[in-house]
């Protein structure tokens, strides 16, 4: 890691006890349960898990973008110590895109197809850069685009479909970073729709922005290589719950939760030895399915017996640096390391 997380100790974003429920076929089903997160200045926290584990829902809940019938409850969402639950709707709009911005997964669909890039950019400036005079907008846009490696001269009147996916993702990052007050960037699988070389460039760009502006980031991804490359800290989610929290090195070297282990095991080796690839059996439980014990128990390779099927495990501290895991086995973390040697 290029940046020592300890160098930035201030907590910028803190989420406590977040719960989100969606309306599904007339019933209210939990999509995220008891989610907590803490991000410090300049820190990149990865949020990983399979599709449907609630990662994107977490980001949308933090930004306050979910509307009824979706319900969001929490014990507090703090941005620079300020509880966003107590902020007025008007103030919240200033925070969205101002201090807390989001980058989306699919760049071409994240721009309005009927507007030019310049117009979409200008609107954001008018919302979040009140100090800026209207005639200086274009110069500022060019400067911001330049920062993400795009020469915007003569392109402001172009429409989104006239750019490539990679360019659009850069432009979206530039738009998200337009506010000088930006503190936290929420990135929802920012590289999923890009090819590998472009992905590397975009990740590089995000890292540069973190360093230049001390931005904190929450990076949602299901790609563990992105996590290894980018993150300082990782939160692993499964079926709407946090199952493991760890420093990135710790996670890869000593994964504690069986889900994390099985995820890591599912990465193919290269060169491959020709044996059958490991695939996790089963699928993520449906949201409306009430599981009495551990939600991962049916797919778990380290199943302990009745306790896993009947008692929901609690996310508890298992080591220094906020190391946490929600597994009945984690109680015997040391013995676990002795019995199973590593992941692969």
């Amino acid at each position, binding site marked *: 890691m290029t940046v020592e997380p300890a160098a930035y100790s201030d907590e910028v974003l803190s989420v406590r006890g977040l719960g989100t429920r969606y309306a599904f076929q007339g019933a209210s089903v939990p999509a995220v349960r008891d989610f907590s997160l803490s991000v410090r200045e300049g820190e990149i926290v990865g949020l990983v898990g399979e599709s449907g584990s609630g990662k994107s829902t977490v980001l*949308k809940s933090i*930004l306050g*973008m979910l509307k009824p019938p979706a319900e969001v409850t929490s014990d507090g969402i703090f941005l620079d110590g300020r509880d966003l639950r107590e902020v007025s709707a008007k103030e*919240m*709009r*200033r*925070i*969205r*895109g*101002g201090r807390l*911005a*989001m980058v*989306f*997964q*699919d760049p071409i*669909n*994240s*721009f*309005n*197809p*009927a507007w030019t890039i310049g117009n979409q950019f200008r*609107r*954001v400036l008018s*919302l*979040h850069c009140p100090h800026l005079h209207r005639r200086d907008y274009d110069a500022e846009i060019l400067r911001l685009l330049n920062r993400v490696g795009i020469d915007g001269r003569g392109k402001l009147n172009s*429409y989104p*479909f*006239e750019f490539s996916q990679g360019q659009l993702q850069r432009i*979206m990052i530039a*738009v*998200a970073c337009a506010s000088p007050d930006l503190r936290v960037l929420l990135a929802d699988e920012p590289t999923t729709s890009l090819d590998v070389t472009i992905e590397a460039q975009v990740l590089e760009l995000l890292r540069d922005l973190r360093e230049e502006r001390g931005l904190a980031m929450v990076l949602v991804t299901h790609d563990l290589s992105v996590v290894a490359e980018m993150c300082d800290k990782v939160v692993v989610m499964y079926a709407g719950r946090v199952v493991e929290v760890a420093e990135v090195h710790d996670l890869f070297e000593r994964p504690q939760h069986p889900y994390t282990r099985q995820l890591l095991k599912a990465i193919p080796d290269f060169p491959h030895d020709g044996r059958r690839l490991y695939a996790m059996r089963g699928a993520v439980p449906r949201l409306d399915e009430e599981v009495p014990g551990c939600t991962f128990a049916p797919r778990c390779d380290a199943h302990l017996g009745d306790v896993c099927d009947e008692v929901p495990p609690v996310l508890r501290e298992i080591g220094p640096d906020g190391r946490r895991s929600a597994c009945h086995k984690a109680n015997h973390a040391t013995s676990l390391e002795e019995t199973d040697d590593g992941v692969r």
Partner: protein
Amino acid sequence: MLRLAVSRLLSAVPVLILISIVSFTLLRLAPGDPALLSAGLEASPEVLERVRQSMRLDEPVWVQYWAWLSDLLRGDLGNSYSDKSPVTEVIAERLPATLQLSAAALLLIVAVGVPMGILSALRANRMADQVIRVASLAGVSVPNFIVALLLVLLFGWWFPGLMPYEGFVPITEDFAASIQHIVLPAIALAAPQVGLVARMTRSSMLEVLGQDYISAARAMGVRESVIVCRDALRNALLPVVTVLGVQIGYLLGGSVVVETVFSIPGIGRLLVDSFAIRDYPVTIGVMMFIAIVFVLVNIVVDVLYGVINPRIRAGYEAGRS
């Protein structure tokens, strides 16, 4: 853009010729003899034959068609059998009433259908949405002659005197009276289309509101009302505009029934009346007029679509180079 318009116009020519052949043939196949109607029932066979000759009805249909078509290309639609005046004049005389009726109906469709659809989408699956959906379904399902008859029954029989339910006053003559007279026919003409437009707007709006760029705008702190009015509406209205264009054609067709029920002297009634007395030149003239308007409106909509949608515009421009 110009190239597009020209190519569409050219491709409309065969369509119109086909329509003219079909209508011309069908008209001649219909029972009834204009010569008989013109000469009177007591006319002797010799007189009848002479009248038929003077009307050129004794020639084969394709010769008649060819004569008619070559006149048409010179801008001459022939003369009415009944009062000998040129068909173009007859149509021009009846046109203002139909135009006024169609314009009023179109206004109603846009002013009622679009907001209803938007409201319905914004309140999706809530009370207001359910009511609007049922109402628009009812509107779509009930043919406009039923609506017209119900309105006449309501204002002509049960509550007479509230609203004028027949006749027409040109807008240039007496503005207030003109508006009053046009309201009921316009409602009757617009009702099915209002429902259709409301449903189109609702589904299109819901689709657009679910798009990522709407979430993205929300995530950048854009006000909800701005998102609806500026971000969503423009994209959502694209398919609605297309439907509206096609509806202008249907309005002309629908006015045949509505004008008859409300006794409005428009081209719809002209069509019915002229057919009743087998005044072939007028009937075919009105049919062609409606066909031409229908085709032209569709071309205009096609071209306009490109103006609203930058992607399609780019497609045209790429095609030109």
